């Protein structure tokens, strides 16, 4: 396989096709519409299902229906659309069907704008719908990473029969980068035993999130919590840059994490021992490793394209062991290397490292 120049939205959409995506249902919204457009041609070409729904509410429920048959199915959207999907996401979680949702975050609240943002962190990791559940949330920082995460997302969704979200942002969706797509995989033709397919020669299968009676629903919840605990144990992911000798740790994910690589390079040139911790799973949050790093470094600078949503998770993990500073931009503004650097330098001074 060779690398090619790919736009993020096209890249993840094509990666999904090559990972054996059986059906896609979606509704146009910037900054992810190129994914829907790409799939409108490619899925039909491959004899698979593509349908533009009348709303994100309909789209997620079409996804839910298809997921009940056990096939690989996904949708993609951005903030306002994700909000409309929330009820469906909760039903999907309660029914334990595998689904992948890509959210290319844009500026909010409200109609906001179409520029990149990371302000849906809390929505995705903590409150994607009513009831006790978390989606597994993956956060790519490059086109190659979102391509790889699509395959991983389907694998994890099916392994745990759970909802997996990919938390991209407008810049991951819109930028072009050279990357390698996976080889073409056929659509899986086996049907999981729990799925609906017509009760031929067996008792009927029912896929529902309705459990009347507190004991029954609590039993479901206990099962879900046990599954989430297992996901926490097995699937936490993060990457680090130059953390071995770091005194000051940058903590950032996705596009902000990528920007922080430049900050790190510049800071190191100036003689600052800066490292980067970039979570690849936002839920489960890579707590254990961050906690180890909290014992090693002397201060942390959290960088986000939000008012500080992941910041609260960092504070929760660090428990006051080292000072934590925050650099955030909102409303579609992108953090600038030199501005982050100013905050890094002042933190370095504060902790006596400069």
């Amino acid at each position, binding site marked *: 396989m060779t690398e090619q120049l790919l736009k993020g939205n096209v890249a993840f959409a094509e990666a999904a096709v090559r990972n054996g995506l059986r059906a896609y249902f979606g509704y146009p919204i910037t900054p992810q519409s190129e994914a829907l457009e790409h799939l409108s041609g490619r899925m039909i070409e491959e004899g698979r299902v593509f349908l533009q729904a009348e709303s994100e509410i309909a789209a997620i429920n079409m996804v839910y229906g298809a997921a009940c048959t056990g096939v690989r199915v996904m949708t993609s959207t951005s903030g306002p659309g994700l909000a409309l999907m929330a009820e469906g996401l909760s039903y999907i979680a309660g029914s334990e069907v595998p689904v992948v949702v890509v959210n290319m975050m844009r500026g909010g609240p409200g109609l906001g704008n179409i520029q990149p943002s990371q302000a849906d962190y809390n929505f995705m990791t903590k409150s994607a719908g009513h009831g006790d559940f978390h989606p597994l949330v993956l956060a790519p920082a490059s086109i190659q990473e979102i391509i790889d995460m699509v395959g991983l997302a389907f694998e994890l969704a099916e392994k745990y029969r759970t909802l997996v979200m990919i938390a991209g942002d407008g810049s991951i969706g819109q930028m072009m980068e050279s990357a390698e797509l996976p080889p073409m995989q056929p659509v899986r033709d086996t049907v999981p035993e729990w799925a609906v397919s*017509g009760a031929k020669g067996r008792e009927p299968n029912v896929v529902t999130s309705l459990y009347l009676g507190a004991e029954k629903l609590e039993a479901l919840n206990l099962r879900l919590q046990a599954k989430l605990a297992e996901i926490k144990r097995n699937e936490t992911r993060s990457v680090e840059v130059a953390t071995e000798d770091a005194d000051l740790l940058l903590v950032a994910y996705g596009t902000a994490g990528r920007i922080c690589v430049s900050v790190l390079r510049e800071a190191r040139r100036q003689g600052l021992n800066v490292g980067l911790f970039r979570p690849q799973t936002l839920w489960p949050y890579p707590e254990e490793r961050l906690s180890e790093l909290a014992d090693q470094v002397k201060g942390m600078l959290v960088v986000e394209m939000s008012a500080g949503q992941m910041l609260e998770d960092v504070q929760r993990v660090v428990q006051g062991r080292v000072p934590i500073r925050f650099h955030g931009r909102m409303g579609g503004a992108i953090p600038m290397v030199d501005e982050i650097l100013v905050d890094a330098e002042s933190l370095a001074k504060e902790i006596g490292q400069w």
Partner: protein
Amino acid sequence: MTLIKTEIPEGMEPIYSYPESLTRLSTHYCPGCVHGIVHRLIAEVLDELGVRENTIGVAPVGCSVLIYNYINTDFVGASHGRAPAMATGIKRIYPDKVVFTYQGDGDIAAIGTAEIIHAANRGELITTVAINNAIYGMTGGQMAPTTLPGMVTTSTPTGRDCAVAGYPVKLSEILAQTAGAVYITRESATDIVGIRKTKKAIKRAFLAQIHGLGFACVEVLATCPTNWNLDPWEAMQWSREHLGGFYPVETFKMTDEVKALKV
């Protein structure tokens, strides 16, 4: 849930028995409720068409949320109003299977209006059975989109004032205008003749799907004795008189191909 047992005495042939597509559970519906009647009609139709093992139902949110306890096929449970979208997802994966939604009037004509209109308009190859009892049964008798003018409900205590609460929605008349619908009819399942007609309509609607003709919906005028504060017998009469008086029992759309189906 009570299991219903039937025993056929030695040497006798059953002339009337449980459809295979109906489970042996007694329903949780109130006495005089039409949900149970229509469940049985669907089960009989699935048996007659021989498609039980090839059918996937989509349950609504409403009193009939537990329909999968009674109809002996694969089922999924939709969120309130979204059954047609879920059915779309399933049917697109399984074009050769029989997919149907069963929905109350609140489910289909209020919160789920967008989904049913677009499913119909796409000519989605699904069958929909819509139960019109002019009220929200499950949540305790509030106004439904179908509640008649002047009708007292728990959220229209002085009667539905259309100037304030809006006018009753005539769903079948609306669906009949969609290009993708091939068969849209309203029936009443409150007396023997009506029940027989309803069954025939349901069968035709499933056949339209099986023959790949397009979207079909059977709206059934029903009852809710509990929330109407009537006894079962009065409720049946009230339904015929008042619901039937406002919502004409009529076939609003039937293409020639659907008409030609042998039912």
